[in-house]
């Protein structure tokens, strides 16, 4: 295909590259002469200097996201949202980490044999030889990789004769086992959150990447929005750790780790009773015991009953535990949750979830046994780090007995460090492929860039192997053509010609036919092949034993809770600096591993923040720093996975090494064979040393400064976000009457009402608000929709060339995040867990910006479009603007940061790389605004950009998986910001100090705020009510019936 050719051409160096040996001419400045390297042949489909977009799929298995990869002059520089699949118009942080993985300096990009560089011919010959020899010796050829779906699965299974394992230490195997036991072979269920009035989670981190299937976050945001129906969904979480997902819970019940299954089953039983359920599950529910569940979990029986009552009353959905529920009862928890959804009759759980292969821990242990017994001749390792994930060093020991260990991935980790043969395959940006993210949704993957190094498609490598092992059945096509053939089966069948004979049959699939090519082009542009969604509902066909008790390994005084790191997940992104440096949403920590300890527990242990503790578990001991945190149950020590990656995983993994909590767990699995990490009791002692944790977070609450504003969920449910006369009346904060000039632009208003007198407001100002004749660019931040997942921060980092500074510079808080997520706790007593409120904070583009008037050299000023401009190369670095900024969103380049090669190839050419001594900040992605404006001007000299082209223009708004950010022109009455600025939930950050910010905030709906009301509902609620969350008492009494 021609595109591949042009990519090769682009690989020759793009259009411009700075000459390394500079010559100096006799000029007035010290100016190196650059060289211009033209193309040899002009590539098709692309214009140098402009971005090309390719619809593709990043991530594998249930985490596959339909996105577009953005290319510039042959380099993939960014990942954008794909709006065409209907799955998710968003980009998640993990997609961008994959982008950084693509450019990682530690990535192996050429085959290696015994540590020495090899050619692909050599490597293939070696692999084929070993595989054939293994087969003939009766040994296995096995494959271990992450969850994968789509066409490659069959290839892998065939090549390995069924010895292909798809395993991730993130706890989906229990759910797969339970689903199989209860519903048969239908794959995982699909949860419909959109219309649920109550979401009950037993710990699944479904608002983060650890559990992500694309679309869940948007669905949750829809459920939480009063604009969708006349209600706000209530989110109840039963889990020991309030991680980023559980932080969004309206009611969080911190239970003892490992007891969720009992609670879930008890609730299921109560719901079944309330619904007078009689069906196949009745027998399984008999094991439920509310009292036993209450005493084991620490959640009162009344609470369990009230949750069940609310669950039965209205449309509700229950979600299983994910990694947080991966205790010895992991499969039973999943089963109980399925039954809960089943008996409630809400039909919020349906077939059609992920149905790719999910191997359980038992499968892996069987393989390990084979390996130890020397029965595995060739082990193909994909991108999963089992040495890191499995306790006791069992996998590392077993690897030594494998004949040949082959790494099929170029990303190094502790497991493939043992590989003798490296056959690095393409990553998602270079390869062809497909992923069946959910049943019936086949997402396509296509390369946009020429491979970074000498890598090959995994499909082609496997085909080579297949041909050597079994030439008869092996496909003759290349991997790409094979894929096209597979996809083309779903192409619409051509209508029979008019003169068709009666027995006319459609022609066989021919990918070289023009009609098929045309269909393929359309499919690739869309990024998805619809293969038929599953319908109907799930029926319980099997049964399983759901009786469980609180079962704990170890005999320490404290419970150990393991949860997934928000960005590093299980450690797979530990070598991605973006994943390391994006602050953990709950604690703000970067580059390390920490232990969350409840203040009361900390008091018992005698430790403070940043003290080092030693955690002794049956499998070993680790030392980590302490973060005293109210969002964890008492007597629970919570440690995130993903730490402890050594230099074998790369230089950045080593930099942010921390400790690997998985390594100290005892070697066990649940009765069904699922992966277990929870339910371990550990001994904890302070070592007396200080840890070196780095957190970017300041104060825990917003000190009554109205950054984190809440509205009453019930009040909001009544009125929604419709335009109201009393802007912000739902918020209960007392601030000045919203100036009309802020909601409508003066000159735009005058155009519409040429003869009207300007209405006088009660607002007197020394200087008028600047006039914005065409645009007033505005961002609306819906803090109710924001769940703190951090995708916007990473997207901003990728788009705007923000350097990564490393741990010791982060100690001095030198992070260069243009958008940060402020995490605020509501005011709380020592005994209760606070409500958590995420407030994305970026430059507010004030109309009366304090930063502008103090700049001595006019490097920052207010543009005619309402933006707070920052001209980087005019900046001299007085940093006065940053001091004057009330939002502290300006960032300073303390050094000239250099991107280690080849990270520099990811840089966005539309944004300059700032050098030291220069202030920088969010400018609403002005390069995108400029590009969009130019595109519209090309159609006519006075075109203004319509709302549709602006709505998700900025990188953060484009990325946001829950659509909490919307961009637009305030002067345009159709734009989202214009509408939301007049809503009852609207507030401006620090509106009292007259900065006239452009960013609208919408308050978060809470069930725990009760304000005295004065007069009608539209009056200002003068008394500022704080959230008073009682997490342990009567949470759900008002969840129903409004």
């Amino acid at each position, binding site marked *: 295909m021609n595109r591949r050719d042009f990519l090769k051409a682009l690989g020759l*160096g793009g*259009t*411009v590259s*700075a000459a390394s040996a500079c010559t100096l*001419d*006799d*000029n*007035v*400045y*010290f*100016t*190196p*002469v*650059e*060289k*211009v*390297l*033209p*193309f*040899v*042949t*002009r590539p098709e489909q692309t*214009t*140098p*200097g*402009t971005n090309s977009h390719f619809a593709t799929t990043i991530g594998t298995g249930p985490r596959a996201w339909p996105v577009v990869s953005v290319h510039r002059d042959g380099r993939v520089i960014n990942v954008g949202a794909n709006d065409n699949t209907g799955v998710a118009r968003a980009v998640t942080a993990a997609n961008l980490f994959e982008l950084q993985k693509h450019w990682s300096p530690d990535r192996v990009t050429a085959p290696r044999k015994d540590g020495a560089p090899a050619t692909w011919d050599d490597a293939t010959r070696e692999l084929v030889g070993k595989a054939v020899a293994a087969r003939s010796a009766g040994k296995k050829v096995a494959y271990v990789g992450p969850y994968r779906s789509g066409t490659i699965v069959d290839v892998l299974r065939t090549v390995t004769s069924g010895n292909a394992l798809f395993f991730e230490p993130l706890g989906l195997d229990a759910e797969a086992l339970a689903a199989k036991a209860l519903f048969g072979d239908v794959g995982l269920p699909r949860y419909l959150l959109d219309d649920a009035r109550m979401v009950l989670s037993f710990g699944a981190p479904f608002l983060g990447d650890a559990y992500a299937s694309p679309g869940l976050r948007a669905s949750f945001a829809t459920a939480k929005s009063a604009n969708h129906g006349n209600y706000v969904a209530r989110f109840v979480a039963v889990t020991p750790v309030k991680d980023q997902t559980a932080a969004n819970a309206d009611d969080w019940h911190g239970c003892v780790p490992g007891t969720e299954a009992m609670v879930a089953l008890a609730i299921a039983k109560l719901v079944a009773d309330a619904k007078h359920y009689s069906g196949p599950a009745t027998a399984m529910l008999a094991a439920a015991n509310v009292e036993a569940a209450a005493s084991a979990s620490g959640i009162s029986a009344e609470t369990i009953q009230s949750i069940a009552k609310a669950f039965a009353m209205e449309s509700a959905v229950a979600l299983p535990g994910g990694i947080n529920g991966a205790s010895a009862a992991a499969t039973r928890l999943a089963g109980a949750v399925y039954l809960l959804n089943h008996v409630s009759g809400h039909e919020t759980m349906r077939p059609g979830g992920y149905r790719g292969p999910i191997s359980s821990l038992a499968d892996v242990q069987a393989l390990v046994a084979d390996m130890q017994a020397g029965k595995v001749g060739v082990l193909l390792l994909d991108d999963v780090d089992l040495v890191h994930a499995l306790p006791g060093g069992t996998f590392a020991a077993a690897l030594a007995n494998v004949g040949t260990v082959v790494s099929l991935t170029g990303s190094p980790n502790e497991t493939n460090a043992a590989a003798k043969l490296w056959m690095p395959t393409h990553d998602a940006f270079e390869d062809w492929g497909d992923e069946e993210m959910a049943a019936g949704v086949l997402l396509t993957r296509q390369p946009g860039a020429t491979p970074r190094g000498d890598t090959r498609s995994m499909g082609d490598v496997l085909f080579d192997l297949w041909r050597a092992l079994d030439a008869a059945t092996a496909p003759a096509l290349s991997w790409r053509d094979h894929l096209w053939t597979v996809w083309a089966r779903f192409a619409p069948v051509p209508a029979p010609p008019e003169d068709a004979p009666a027995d006319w049959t459609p022609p066989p699939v021919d990918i070289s036919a023009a009609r098929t090519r045309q269909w393929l082009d359309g499919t690739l542009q869309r990024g998805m092949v619809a293969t038929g969604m599953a319908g109907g509902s799930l029926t319980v066909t099997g049964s399983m034993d759901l009786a469980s008790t609180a079962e704990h390994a170890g005999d320490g005084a404290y419970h150990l809770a393991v949860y997934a790191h928000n960005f590093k997940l299980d450690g797979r992104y530990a070598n991605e600096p973006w994943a390391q440096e994006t602050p953990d949403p709950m604690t703000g920590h970067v580059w390390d591993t920490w232990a969350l300890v409840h203040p009361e527990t900390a008091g018992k242990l005698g430790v403070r923040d940043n003290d080092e503790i030693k955690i002794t578990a049956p499998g070993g001991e680790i030392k980590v720093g302490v973060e005293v945190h109210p969002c964890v149950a008492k007597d629970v020590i919570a440690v995130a996975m993903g730490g402890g990656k050594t230099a074998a995983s790369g*230089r950045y993994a080593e*930099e942010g090494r921390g400790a690997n909590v998985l390594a100290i767990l005892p070697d066990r699995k649940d009765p069904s064979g699922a992966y277990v990490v929870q339910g371990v009791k550990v001994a904890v002692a302070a070592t007396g040393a200080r840890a070196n944790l780095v957190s970017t977070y300041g104060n825990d609450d917003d000190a009554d400064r109205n950054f984190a504003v809440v509205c009453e969920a019930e009040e909001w449910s009544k009125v929604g976000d419709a335009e109201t006369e009393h802007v912000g009346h739902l918020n209960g904060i007392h601030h000045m009457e919203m100036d009309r000039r802020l909601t409508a632009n003066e000159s735009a208003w005058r155009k519409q009402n040429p003869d009207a007198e300007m209405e006088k407001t009660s607002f007197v100002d020394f200087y008028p608000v600047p006039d914005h004749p*065409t645009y007033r660019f505005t961002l609306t931040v819906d803090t109710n929709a924001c769940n703190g997942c951090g995708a916007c921060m990473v997207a901003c980092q990728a788009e705007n060339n923000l*350097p990564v*500074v*490393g741990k*010791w*510079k982060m100690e001095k808080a030198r992070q260069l995040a243009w958008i940060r997520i402020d995490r605020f706790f509501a005011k709380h007593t020592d005994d209760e867990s606070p409500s958590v409120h995420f407030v994305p904070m970026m430059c507010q583009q004030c109309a009366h910006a304090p930063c502008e008037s103090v700049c001595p050299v006019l490097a920052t*000023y207010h543009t*005619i479009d309402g*933006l707070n*401009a920052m*001209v*980087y*190369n*005019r900046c001299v670095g007085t940093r006065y603007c940053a001091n004057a900024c009330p939002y502290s969103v300006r960032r300073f380049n303390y*050094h*000239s*940061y*250099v991107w*280690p090669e080849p990270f520099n190839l990811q840089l966005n050419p*539309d944004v*300059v*790389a700032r*050098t*030291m001594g220069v202030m920088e900040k969010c400018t609403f992605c*002005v*390069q995108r605004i*400029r590009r969009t404006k*130019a595109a519209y*001007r*090309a159609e006519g*000299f*006075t075109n203004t950009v319509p709302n549709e082209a602006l709505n998700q223009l900025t990188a953060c708004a484009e990325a946001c998986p829950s659509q909490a950010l919307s961009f637009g022109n305030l002067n345009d009455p159709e734009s989202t910001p214009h509408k939301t600025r007049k809503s009852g939930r609207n507030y401006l950050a620090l509106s009292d100090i007259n900065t006239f910010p452009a960013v609208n905030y919408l308050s978060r709906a809470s069930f725990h705020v009760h304000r005295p009301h004065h007069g009608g509902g539209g009056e200002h609620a003068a008394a500022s009510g704080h959230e008073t969350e009682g997490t342990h008492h009567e949470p759900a009494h008002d969840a129903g019936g409004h």
Partner: protein
Amino acid sequence: MRHLVLLPVAAGIFLIPTACTVAEAEKMGDPKFPLDYHPVLPQYGPNTGQIAAGRATGKALEQPIQFSHFVHASELGIDCQYCHSEARRSIHSGVPPMQACMGCHQYVKLESPEVQKIHDHWCGQPKCTVRKDEFGQPIREANAKPIPWQKVHDLPDYVHFNHSRHIAGGLNCTECHGQVQLQGQYRLEPIPGDAEGRKYRVVDEVMIREATLQMGWCLDCHRNHPSIDKNYGEAADLRRAELKDCWTCHK
């Protein structure tokens, strides 16, 4: 002389903080997160991504091939955008791909040593002859090398210049690039060793920058260029204000 006792004391006082300071400064050399070290002039050093405009005009750079705009644009009358075809589509003007050169020079002026240099780059080796496919098109060689032109019109990296907007606005290339069609004046000299005694053009100056490309020079047009009134009519005043906005050019 008792004051001299102070000297060692003073040395001690200064030595301790000096040691601390040195230790602090040494932290800077981190291979994982490299920083740029600027010994002399930070803003113009290598790898900083910034270079200065305002190089003295009027002096030609040594170019790999002695190309003559005069011959192509004046004598042969080829339009600028015939070769620089990206100018109307992209921010770059697009130095023409070698394909474009080969389009003609696979047939014409093959005897010229300068044309031979194009062929050499096309083949990736000296003294080569171009292979052609069945349609008579030159076949791209695997190790073809682009011609390393020296950049004459070089803007700093912090400047965003969009060729397509200027072309769309109706500006003539010469307004910024000068009378390029008159540059590349030549003299004829016999081709060494040519049996037919043919001559080829020897070009002294391939390309000269006639404008300073400095900010003030840009502003001279952005303040009030006739095309603004012509294109924007009533909205010209607003457009003039926009054109003077820093972000029109800076990035």
